[in-house]
């Protein structure tokens, strides 16, 4: 091939020729919808990559911006009539970009931290102090990206995984054994979700193994092109997850789930590495909602018959609905909880506009996407948004103001709240 020398797997370069430029993907692309500019549409990005590979475009800050402003929400790949795996194409192109990059120092630092579990814990302790300091000195109205500092979640004082036992055995009869992959968010920010998951799985009689040495799933790294940096973590997790004997590997974070289920096996395949172990692990990975919805009847859910039911709406995280193909299970769970009423919003599976550093790097586009989402949420009249991804939770809460009075929760938190205290 003439042009820029990149070694993409052939299946991926072949995809470039399967894009026949119909433009149908514009209808689902969040970045196109807010900009209405073709270079922010999937078709535009695909064609730009094609021209780059053919040698008539260079790596420039503009090219970098075009590729990095993609949310990797997968909506285009799911829709494409021609079956082009746009997501995979862009991920590979980001590796190419990583060689040349105007990436800011801050992001490099984050990458270095994510790569190392101990560093991550230390950094989060520092960040906790820093966060308080920032709010104290800059005031609650100053923002990070689009999010007021005061609406960012508080970093927990201690890592969730350090706090809970590495193995939890059920009180009664054991009904199964699962590994709980907590992800960084539950470990360091949203331990409330972690406790809800433990409570629910415990009630189901599950033995739960929470390997302490698990590390970041590395999706934030390899999705940004930092593939080399991500491999040690990936292999370490695969070692652990493949070693421990269990019926399933449970995740509560859609991004970790999509990475383990789909992203990592595909990444290894694209790199020409052995994928057998990754696929074995992937088969066992389940979102917590999948496990719970199968056995919903066994849970002691409080019957709350008095009063007007509380309206709850559900936001489908990209990585859950498209990354893992999970949409029905959380809804089944929410519909079962008495005292709440599930009200669907328009465009529930459209991206929330957050994810990774996106909202900090692409402030305008992100704000546009999030405000669409917020409009749809408000239109339901719900007081609670349930979702299954810490990234979405952070973005949504961050963009809903205090007095709008809408709580953003993980589906498992709502379910846990509805369980009776007594055992059945």
């Amino acid at each position, binding site marked *: 091939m003439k042009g820029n020398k990149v070694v993409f797997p052939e299946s991926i370069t072949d995809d470039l020729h399967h894009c026949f430029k119909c433009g149908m993907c514009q209808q689902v692309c969040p970045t196109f919808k807010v900009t209405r*500019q073709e270079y922010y549409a999937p078709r535009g990005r695909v064609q*730009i990559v094609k021209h780059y590979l053919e040698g008539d475009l260079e790596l420039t800050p503009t090219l970098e911006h075009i590729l990095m402003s993609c949310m990797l929400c997968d909506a285009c790949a799911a829709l494409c009539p021609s079956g082009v795996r746009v997501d995979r194409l862009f991920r590979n192109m980001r590796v190419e970009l990583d060689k040349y990059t105007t990436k800011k120092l801050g992001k490099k630092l984050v990458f270095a931290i994510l790569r190392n579990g101990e560093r991550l814990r230390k950094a989060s302790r520092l960040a906790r102090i820093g966060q308080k300091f920032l709010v104290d000195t800059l005031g609650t109205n100053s923002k990070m990206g689009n999010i007021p500092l005061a609406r960012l979640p508080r970093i927990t004082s201690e890592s969730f995984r350090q706090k809970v036992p590495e193995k939890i055995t059920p009180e009664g009869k054991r009904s199964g054994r699962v590994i709980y992959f907590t992800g960084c968010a539950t470990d360091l920010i949203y331990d409330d979700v972690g406790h809800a998951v433990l409570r629910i799985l415990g009630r189901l009689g599950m033995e739960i193994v929470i390997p302490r040495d698990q590390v970041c799933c590395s999706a934030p790294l390899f999705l940004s092109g930092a593939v080399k940096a991500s491999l040690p973590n990936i292999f370490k997790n695969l070692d652990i997850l493949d070693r421990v004997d269990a019926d399933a590997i449970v995740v509560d974070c859609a991004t970790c789930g999509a990475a383990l289920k789909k992203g990592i096996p595909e990444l290894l395949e694209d790199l020409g590495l052995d994928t057998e172990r990754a696929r074995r692990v992937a088969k066992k990975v389940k979102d917590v909602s999948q496990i719970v919805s199968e056995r919903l009847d066994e849970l002691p859910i409080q019957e709350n018959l008095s009063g007007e039911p509380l309206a709850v709406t559900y936001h489908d995280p990209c990585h859950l609905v498209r990354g893992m193909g999970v949409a029905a299970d959380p809804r089944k769970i929410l519909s079962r909880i008495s005292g709440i009423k599930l009200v669907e919003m328009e465009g529930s599976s459209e991206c929330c506009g957050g994810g990774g550093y996106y909202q900090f790097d692409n402030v305008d586009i992100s704000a546009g996407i999030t405000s669409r989402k917020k409009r749809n949420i408000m239109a339901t009249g719900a007081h609670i948004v349930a979702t299954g991804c810490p990234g979405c939770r952070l973005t949504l809460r961050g963009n809903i103001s205090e007095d709008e009075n809408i709580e953003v929760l993980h589906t498992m938190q709502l379910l846990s709240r509805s369980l009776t205290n007594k055992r059945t």
Partner: protein
Amino acid sequence: MRHETKKELERIVGPDKATDSPEHLVAYSYDAYTEERRPDIVLFPATTEEISAIMKVAHRETIPVTPRGAGTNLAGESVPIRGGIVVCLTKMDKILSIDAESLTATVQPGVINLDLQREVEKLGMMYPPDPASWAVATMGGTVATNAGGPRTLKYGVTKDYLLGLIVVLANGDVLKTGGRTLKNVTGYNLTTLICGSEGTLGIITEIIVRLIPKPPASRTIRADFMKLEDCSDAVAAIMASGSVPASLELMDRFVVKAVERSFKLGLPTDVEGILLIQLDGAEETLGREIKQIEKSLIDKNARNIIIAKDSAEAERLWLARRAAGPAMMRMRPNIITEDVTVPVSKLTAMIRKVTEIGERHRIQVGILAHAGDGNLHPCIVFDKRDDDEYKRVQAVCEELIPEALALGGTLSGEHGIGIAKAPFLKFEMDTVALSVMQGIKNYFDPKGILNPGKFV
């Protein structure tokens, strides 16, 4: 283009609405056709005044200008084949008004067809033109191409719903034509002239369309045929029976097999053709019409007839038709969707011809058709990287056209002329018609700056 001219244009729309960086230009070098060419600059104007100012500069400097909506046309109509300026209308995307009493809507050109559909439907109305690309195609683009769709059979095409336009002419003058009334015979019908002109006469900046009340009920029927002749004869029989379905779609065996291979919907693959029929209207009359159609289908030896019991089943039946395009696209890297159209009585003959031409050139062709109005979409699938195959594909396209014309048809039912069909125009239009058209073009655009290199 001179640097100062670019700067001048940039000042008109503002720096964030003008770009000439190579990456951005690549994204405006194509549409859904194969040919590509980068413009020199892309502008995203926000008002009629800005567009008028742009045209004044372009006119003074004799710079080509190509208007563009979503860039979904299939004929290279929005490819800036001579470079110059692309004026992209997508940022003018407001629905200005919907008038439920006079059944009209006024929109900017960047409004997406489906967005308008959704808004008027909330008020119990319908905007009939429904190209399959409606979820992305712009109102400006659909007017400039006079788009049709499955519902065209009963309801007509874009021009039948167009009441008025604001158009910026080549020299920057602003033309207002038509109005909000259904009847209007004041002077030449310039509105219809602009409709379908593919950006060669002016840039549309405001559109007034007519709406109709939404039909209260609809029904779907599927019929399978062992012989293709029977299938297309049934189409003619239905059309002659007096009932007018909203849509009447045909898929041949090649397409049915492709759908089964990709999507496994449980369609019979031993049949030569499948018809999908949708009726809409008042509940009372639908029952009678269905009986009538069923009779025509039985007369023409339909092996199997399914009448959907509810909307869920109707949706399942239509899934087969919706999957047809994607299934064809997935077969090979490239696809050309042809658009030849013949009188409905000649449908069978034309389908046979298409299949025969494809086989002779060893090219894979599946046939989809808006059968009720004789509009065929032969889907030609191939790999453009194979030079020999691509040559044979071109030969197929060239042979289709005289065949359609010989049967009293036209070379394009709805996809337009653009670059793709420009060389064939002379086969269909005689010298008098061509010279009138050229005269109109010369009057509107003496310097030939509006979408040059296309059909006029």
